[in-house]
């Protein structure tokens, strides 16, 4: 069973050949998103419960012309956020059988600090503004109260310091990378915990 995380809906639905995304009215798209949220909130838990038991890697069921497919990632990385999951999947590509090196090489990728999905469970993440070498601020250690915009550290890009700032008010949590580590653009750096009733925007 995957560890409990908040539902997260990702991406826009694949358009059919008849109606490319570009041409689908915004109203309709938002309806889709609403539907996805409903599905996520109400149906997925049941669905997963049903299938957690079975040893299935992937399951596809049809009724009439409808199709439902449920897939468990092939590495046990359950519960990780989407991009990581995608990368894990990608890792299962048996490109000339060199899958392993593949999955690992991407393991240090950025998380979805941007789309706010990291939010709903009372934590958010300060991510890297650039590709370079990360240094935390000594005075921003775990437990420190911070306000949105406070500097938590910097990323050195060819000698120029790019600020890492707190995305919301809260308390500094775990630092996800070591001081002096190489980080890529958008990579998760520092967790910010905040009260369940979010203060930040």
């Amino acid at each position: 069973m995957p560890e409990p995380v908040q539902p997260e809906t990702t991406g826009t639905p694949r358009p059919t050949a008849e109606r490319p995304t570009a041409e689908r009215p915004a109203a309709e798209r938002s309806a889709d998103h609403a539907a996805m949220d409903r599905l996520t909130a109400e149906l997925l838990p049941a669905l997963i419960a049903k299938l957690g038991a079975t040893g299935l890697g992937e399951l596809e069921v049809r009724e009439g012309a409808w199709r439902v497919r449920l897939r468990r990632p092939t590495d046990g990385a359950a519960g990780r956020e989407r991009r990581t999951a995608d990368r894990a999947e990608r890792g299962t590509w048996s490109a000339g059988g060199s899958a392993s090196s593949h999955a690992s090489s991407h393991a240090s990728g950025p998380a979805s600090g941007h789309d706010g999905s990291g939010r709903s469970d009372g934590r958010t993440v300060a991510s890297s503004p650039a590709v370079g070498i990360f240094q935390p601020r000594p005075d921003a250690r775990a437990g420190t109260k911070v306000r949105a915009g406070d500097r938590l550290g910097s990323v050195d890009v060819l000698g120029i310091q790019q600020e890492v700032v707190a995305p919301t008010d809260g308390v500094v949590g775990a630092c996800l990378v070591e001081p002096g580590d190489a980080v890529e653009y958008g990579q998760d750096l520092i967790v910010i915990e905040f009260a369940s009733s979010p203060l930040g925007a």
Partner: protein
Amino acid sequence: MFGKILIANRGEIALRVLRACRTLGVEAVVAYSEADRESLPVQLADEAICIGPADAKRSYLSAPAVISAALVTGCDAIHPGYGFLSEDAGFADAVAAHGLTFIGPSAAVLERFGSKARTRHLLGGHGLPTIPGSDGLLRDEMHALDEAERIGYPVLIKPSAGGGGKGMRMVRTPRELESVLRVCQSEAKAAFGDDSLYLEKWLDENRHVEIQVVVDRYGHGVHLGERDCSVQRRHQKILEEAPTPALSEAARADLAERAVRAAVAAGYENIGTLEFLVDANGDFFFIEINCRIQVEHPVTEMLTGIDMVATQIRIAAGEPLGYSQADVILNGHAIEFRINAEDPAHDFRPGAGVVERYHAPGGPGVRMDSHLFSGYEVPPFYDSLLGKLIVWGPDRATAIARGRVALDELVVDGLVTNIAMHQALLVNETFLEGRMTTNLLDRVGSAAFLAAAARS
């Protein structure tokens, strides 16, 4: 040879460079923007690093981001592909300043050949007939009008930096010149961050023939024959082929030999392309040199069997060329079709979206260089090139026959493409007779061209 190369580009060329690195046994890191996170080169790469957001100015065009990515991943060289930073002398300089190798000509060479006006002057001095043009860059509108008068209308306004048709306009009168000068400037600024322009004499009925040269660091140079890129729409190449139907074998050899001799004499280094206009009489005029690997390089690879990207990397690593002109054999005929996400029915408006289903054609003499896969979402932020279909045959007729079959087999569902345009070309009499000129499609109008093909 290098230990690890950063690939600072995207799409099919990132994949092409990745394959070349692997063939050479060199590690590679694919640098990508957030918009390309799910792209094929990133998925296939052993190592990939996100260098910025979708906006190319903050990722693929950001020298600091690219160089920083190379440093933190332990690369000792950067391959810029084409477009983006591939011909930016300042970037090449910065790369060298950080102890890395720019895969392409050195900064000094890029600098020397950076200005098209100066380059024309330089190679003209080494025996290449050049197209009449403005004396240096255009200082202001007055200067532009005077120079145009001197050269004689029609003239072509061209940006000094970059290529690909952006910032280019052909004008036939002073009024036209005045009216479009600003537009060209802003287009050039937007595309290349440099709004300097120059003028070139416009030949109405011309062919675009370019010579591929390869020069190592020790001044050993060979040519790999020519490519005919006369099939253009608004100065953008659509289809390229070799050999050119425009010139006799003797004329082709003469042009190629003069081109490589001039390039070597002028101190050019690594692979490069000398572009010529060929007029109705077969007279040719040098217009510019491209200091990068070009989109159409597979045409030459099909004829020579030489991996040009690997060659480019080896030369940048300081290896000698290792073969002479006599070793270069040009075999058969090749055609490249640029498959773009653009809508011929709506003035070739570029498109984006999800590739519902992708199937690449195959069989003898058929090569598809593309980053597409079923389910891939083409981002709207970059150029519309979806891939390149290259066909080879022992002769032009066979290549054309294979081209027709391959274009019919190619499946790119979910996007509007220019495949129909290529299919139209392959039944067009002018093309079949090898008489395409660069202005034909614009003169006839692509719509009329497609309609005519539909009737035939």
